[in-house]
Structures are given as structure tokens and as C-alpha cells.
């Protein structure tokens, strides 16, 4: 029986889809069987980042409305043999086409065949969010080091805490070295203590994230990329390994050593 993890944020554009694609790929690289589920109905783009756009035939709404079986809708990423699949979102229908109960049944079915189901959640706290969270066993909240993103993360964490799932964990994405050095951004410590949840990891801001997404090749496949390292470390922590937090070379020694990193499965 696999585990379903929803990747959510509240604020849009902070890197939910990028994180889903990269963590899914990283887990597949580690030999796990992974299914990515895009629940951003009407605004799908997980398929593009994975380079699978052209191979979509059926989508999530087709499955839920019984027009096809799950297996027919799943798109296989050939780079990973039988380890990475995508269930694409519908591009045309509106997001009220799906109910939380239907999502729950769908995810439960997928959990039989996969080690990890990563659910890419749409921005906001409406129907799309409720659907995405419905089948999840745990949640990852993505934020960037900006006050507005952190505020929305706080709101989402409050909502997630009402759900019957494990306490959510945090990813801080798009950390910029130069801003940290100049003190022009919220530091990792401020954010985690403000939100008071466990930090799952940090990901540096890197332009290759954008260019590799455009090529349909998640950046995590490049072992030398700094953002990729962040995603690989997070994947290892999801698998239960204890990996120390990477340093952001801030010139302030001991800065990150203060951080508690607790991720126990």
C-alpha cells in the first residue's frame, strides 16, 4: 500500500508543480514506483514540465466520469521504465466536475499499485484544494521567502491541520543566495519558526529550473545543479533518510546548523 502526498501552497506560482515533477522524478530515480496526479483542472501543466504533453489521451475527469479505466489515462514516462506515471488534469472541463469523494476513491485505487502518489494541488483554498487534499495521507506545503507566500502558507497549514492527515511539512523554494547575504529576504529560520512546522528542505532559485521545465526535463535529472540537489535531498528525507540541510553559503557560520530537521516516517 503506497502513500499519497499532496503538494500545496495557498499562494499561486511558488513552485508546487515544479516540486511535484522534481520530487516524483527524484523518487523514481531512487527506484520507487511513483504516480503524479495533476489536480489543477483547467490549468494543467505538470505534463509540460515532464515533457509528456503530446502523449495525453485521457485525463482525470475521463477516469472519474467512467469514460476510460485508470490504466488507460496514465501516461508513462519512458525515461524511468515502469516507475514514473502521470495522471493528467483535464484542460477543458471546469474544476467542479470532480468531488472530494471521487478523488478519494481514485487515490485509494492508485495506492494499491504505487509506492508514492504525489498530488499537485491548484492554488487557492476552494474546490480544487479540497479535491487535492481529499485522498492524501500527508501534505507538503511549498512557500517562497516572501511575506505574502508565508502568510498564505500559514492559512493553508491552518486548514490542513483540520484534516485527518499527518502534520504538514515545509519546503522553502526559490531561495536566493545573494538576497540572504544582503539580508533582503526572510531567512529560513524566521519562516520555520513563524509557521512552526517541520522543515522538509530548501530549494535554491536557479534559472535552469525554468529552462529545463521548458525542455520537459525536470532539473533534478541534472546531478550537478544546485536546485536539483535540494530536490534530491527532500526525496531522500521523504524516504526516511536523515540528510543534513545543505548550506546556503551565507558567510554567517552556523546559520543553518541552528535548524532542527525532523523528518521521521
Amino acid at each position, binding site marked *: 500500500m503506497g502513500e499519497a502526498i499532496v503538494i500545496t501552497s495557498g499562494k499561486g506560482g511558488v513552485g508546487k508543480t515544479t516540486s511535484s515533477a522534481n520530487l516524483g522524478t527524484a523518487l523514481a530515480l531512487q527506484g520507487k514506483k511513483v504516480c503524479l496526479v495533476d489536480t489543477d483542472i483547467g490549468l494543467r501543466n505538470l505534463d509540460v514540465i515532464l515533457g509528456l504533453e503530446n502523449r495525453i489521451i485521457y485525463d482525470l475527469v475521463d477516469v472519474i466520469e467512467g469514460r476510460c479505466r485508470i490504466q488507460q489515462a496514465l501516461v508513462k514516462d519512458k525515461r524511468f521504465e515502469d516507475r514514473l506515471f502521470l495522471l493528467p488534469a483535464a484542460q477543458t472541463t471546469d474544476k467542479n466536475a470532480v468531488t472530494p469523494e471521487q478523488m478519494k476513491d481514485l487515490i485509494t485505487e492508485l495506492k494499491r499499485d504505487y509506492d508514492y502518489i504525489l498530488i499537485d494541488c491548484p492554488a487557492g483554498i476552494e474546490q480544487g484544494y479540497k479535491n487535492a487534499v481529499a485522498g492524501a495521507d500527508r501534505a507538503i506545503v511549498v512557500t517562497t521567502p516572501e511575506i505574502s507566500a508565508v*502568510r*498564505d502558507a*500559514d*492559512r493553508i*497549514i*491552518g*486548514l490542513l*491541520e483540520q484534516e485527518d492527515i499527518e502534520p504538514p511539512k515545509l519546503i522553502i523554494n526559490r531561495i536566493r543566495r545573494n538576497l540572504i547575504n544582503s539580508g533582503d529576504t526572510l531567512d529560513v529560520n524566521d519562516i520555520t519558526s*513563524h509557521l*512552526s512546522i517541520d522543515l522538509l528542505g530548501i530549494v535554491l532559485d536557479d534559472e535552469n529550473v525554468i529552462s529545463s521545465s521548458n525542455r520537459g526535463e525536470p532539473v533534478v535529472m541534472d546531478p550537478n545543479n544546485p536546485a536539483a540537489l535540494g530536490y534530491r535531498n527532500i526525496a531522500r528525507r521523504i524516504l526516511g533518510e536523515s540528510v543534513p540541510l545543505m548550506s546556503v553559503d551565507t558567510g554567517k557560520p552556523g546559520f543553518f546548523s541552528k535548524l532542527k530537521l525532523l523528518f521521521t516516517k
Partner: protein
Amino acid sequence: MSKQQVVTIKGTKDGLILRLDDQCAYSDLLEELGKKAQDPGLEGAVEVQIHTGSRYCSDQAAKEIIQIVQSAGHLRVSKIQSDVITMEECNQRVQERQSETYIGIVRSGQEVRAKGDLVVIGDVNPNGHVSAAGSIYILGRLKGKAHAGNAGNREAVIAASWLEATHLMIADQMETMTDELAILSEHPEMECAYLHTNGVIAIDRLQDLRLLRPGLSTFKGGC
């Protein structure tokens, strides 16, 4: 019947007390009060307290009495006191003396309300809201909104381990914590907010609370 004194005047060091008979008809009382208020012998006496004994004094009646007593111009009613209250008022007072405890973070968009005092063990984050008819005590950082005395209790206070609220409200007074505000401290650790006698919200060190609001302490006995 009309010979009987229904309003007795008593002088004390704190001013005059008008003791109202609690057996006679209310209309007789008002009439007599009117006469007494005009009594030239009372000239110069400013503050009066009114005791209604075992007669229930509704808000409406209180208004009428104050109006009649003050109509002569030289008297001011500082307080109306009755020995009886309604069940409802009594229940409300009991509830206001009770304390509820919330353990956890009050996050953005969440609201925690209490009918009496409220104890929060955890932070109140920006856009989080705590509200109580009594006082609010926060073992954590208050970074959102807090409203103490939300049913009108002006004695209620807001105390926090770290007080950097965006909005503070006590009874019907509100203060937004903008940077221009002089009462804000650099290091807002262990502070409390209360309604100053001048009617605006003030912030002080937590250790001053026992002097500012001695009535809040329910602890009896020495130590």
C-alpha cells in the same frame, strides 16, 4: 402614605448616597426623586450614588433615574447600585469569570472566541484573531488581532509573552499597531495592553499588571 420617606439622603466621605425605598411604587419614587433633586439644600454637592436596595433596576429605569436626578444641573450620578440582578446577568457574570484554554497556533484566517477569559498556548499569527468577553492571556507571540472585553468589559486586558499585534481591541476601543504609534516598544516581550483611564489603549510591562488591574487576581491568601 405620601408622608413616608421613599428617598433618604446620606452623606459619606465619597459624596452623597440616595437610598431609594424598594417597596413603594416606582412612579412615587420618580416623583419624590424629582423633588429631592431640586432641593436647594443640596447645592454644591456634586457626586451622588444611588442605591435601589432590593428593587431591580433595568437599564431603562437607570436612565430615567439618572435623567431626573441630573435635571437640576448640580448633581451627577456616579453609580447606581442594586442588590438584585437577573438570572441572565448572573449567568453572564459567571461565564465571564470562567477561563477557556486553546492549545495550538491561531493561524491566518482562524478565529478563537471565548465567553470568559481566554488563554492561548501558542502563537497568534498575522490575520489570526482571538476574542474574549474577558481578558486574553497568550503564552506565545501575538502577531494578529486580539479583542478583549468584547461584550463591553473595559477592565479586560491583553497580555502576551511577545506582543506585536496588528490590531488591539478592548471593549469598544481599537488601536492599529502602526509604526508611528509611540506606545510600541522595540522589544515587546512580556507586555500587556489595557484601557487607560483616559480612554485609549495603553501598553505596559506585564509586571505592572497587578497594580493596574488588582481585581484580575483571583488568588486568595498569602504566600
